[in-house]
């Protein structure tokens, strides 16, 4: 890890590692009148990787987008319940979605770098949040690219277009771009599903590395991936959180017969 990383709070400490970062109480989400998430209550620990698995359409992406209020971008979405980030309800009165999204970053399914240079992609977030000094921006860009394990590959061409990078590099660039805002939580929506196995491996290694500094919640289709990267796993089915617990236990001794049916491949 580069020495420039900002230390936020007492990260790495075993006491705080058990700390609850996000507490969700009775969260429900509707698309119009269609329920997508039904009364989910769950806690996410700080500085660990939590995987959310489940068949397509089970609501896991909707759930993820509820954690940084990105569902509001879509018309006709209604949310109920509480999402407490460090004890403060992000849906509470006076909470600004713009401020929340700066704390809860997001990486999308398909790499979506802007059609700008590599530098401008990573510098985008800091610039919006008021950083103007060139040297400061450069330091942030360098730190973020280091954190996303991309620096070595792009250090000599920061000014070249981001769209010239390979798919795997683009996804790591998107991770760097999200990290440049200095979020506390990183939401990842199937971040490796559009990548080849080698690039997937690199992104998975990166996720493990990032968990030292960030709370990571990752939605994945791929159960091997959930087993490889996460400490805790949640299984979603039809908008309900069926089972939630330590990953190894979930994959070896699932408590719910529906979880067992899913992970042994009987549906989904």
């Amino acid at each position: 890890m580069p020495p420039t990383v900002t230390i936020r709070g007492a990260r790495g400490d075993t006491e705080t590692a058990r700390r609850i970062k996000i507490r969700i109480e009775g969260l429900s989400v509707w698309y119009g009148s269609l329920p997508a998430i039904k009364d989910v209550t769950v806690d996410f620990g700080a500085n660990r990787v939590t995987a959310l698995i489940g068949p397509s359409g089970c609501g896991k992406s909707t759930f993820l987008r509820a954690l940084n209020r990105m569902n509001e971008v879509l018309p006709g979405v209604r949310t109920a319940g509480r999402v407490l980030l460090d004890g403060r309800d992000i849906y509470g009165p006076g909470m600004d979605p713009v401020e929340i999204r700066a704390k809860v970053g997001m990486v999308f399914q398909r790499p979506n770098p802007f059609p700008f240079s590599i530098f401008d992609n990573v510098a985008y977030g800091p610039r919006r949040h008021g950083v103007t000094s060139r040297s400061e921006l450069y330091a942030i860009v360098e730190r973020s690219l280091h954190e996303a394990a991309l620096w070595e590959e792009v250090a000599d061409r920061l000014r070249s277009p981001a769209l010239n990078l390979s798919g795997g590099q683009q996804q790591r660039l998107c991770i760097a771009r999200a990290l440049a805002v200095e979020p506390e939580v990183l939401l990842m929506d199937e971040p490796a599903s559009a990548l080849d196995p080698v690039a997937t491996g690199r992104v998975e290694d990166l996720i493990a590395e990032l968990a030292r500094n960030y709370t990571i919640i990752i939605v994945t289709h791929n159960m091997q991936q959930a087993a490889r990267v996460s400490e805790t796993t949640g299984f979603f089915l039809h908008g309900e959180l069926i089972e939630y617990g330590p990953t190894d236990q979930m994959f070896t001794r699932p408590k719910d017969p529906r979880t067992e049916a899913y992970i042994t491949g009987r549906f989904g």
Partner: protein
Amino acid sequence: MRSTLSLRPGPRPRRRATEGRQAELVLAGLASCSLLALGLIFVFLVKEALPLFKSYPFEDFVRGLEWQPTSTNVRFGLVPLLAGTFLVTLGAAVIAVPLSLGVALFVSEVAPKRIRELLKPGLELLAAIPSVVYGFFGMVVLARWLQGVFGLTSGLNAFNGSILLAVMALPTMVTLSEDALRAVPESYRNASLAMGASRWETMIHVTLPSARAGVAAAVILGLGRVIGETMTVLMVTGNAAQISFSFFDSVRTMTATIAAEMAECAWGTPHYHALFAVGAALFLITFVFNAVADILLRRGARG
């Protein structure tokens, strides 16, 4: 060659291949017709323009500061006409570009669906108004208004032309730049919002720059229309062939000159050939404009 309408069963793949090639040839023929027409028009313009330079030096035409086609001491200087076209076009651009960008951003990024569905066809209707009607409006309404507001002796001036041409360029600029903005992938906007940028910041710093090539092409194509427009400017700019840099002076554009004088000059006279030379110059300008727009659009399509 087999008839393509033959009903006899034959080796199908081969018949298909021939059919495909025939269709390609027909399409290529049609396409080259339009290219040929373009080439012929230019050749015709140049051919009709060239005799002027037997009696009048080319240099005096390109750099001449006076256009006096009917005085005893004739002058066919292109500069005042170029200046007129330039002034009117510049004014139209200053008015139309910010306005159409604003409208395009509003329609594509802000307006609810129902308003968008009203606004866009409404704007496109502006393109259906004949230019002579714009000119009539400019002479009767706008000229009188300008005269009153700015205390001018005449409201028929470059500013009047610029306002009307800006309105006429709006449909092209708005429609094409709105298309370019809407073609920006939703994933870019989501990425920006997810980093804590506001909708406004996303619009200005992501959507607009991502659509820059298409927006630039829209502006250039809109200006191409402005440069080529004839009837409206003929009616409202006052038609004094003078070099002026004031929007409240009367000016005359290249198009208006050709339209006004072609009917009055005798066939085969230097004046006649000079008007063709003006036409050839105008053709070159609009050709360059369209070529640049085309290159930009292609670059935009590549992303």
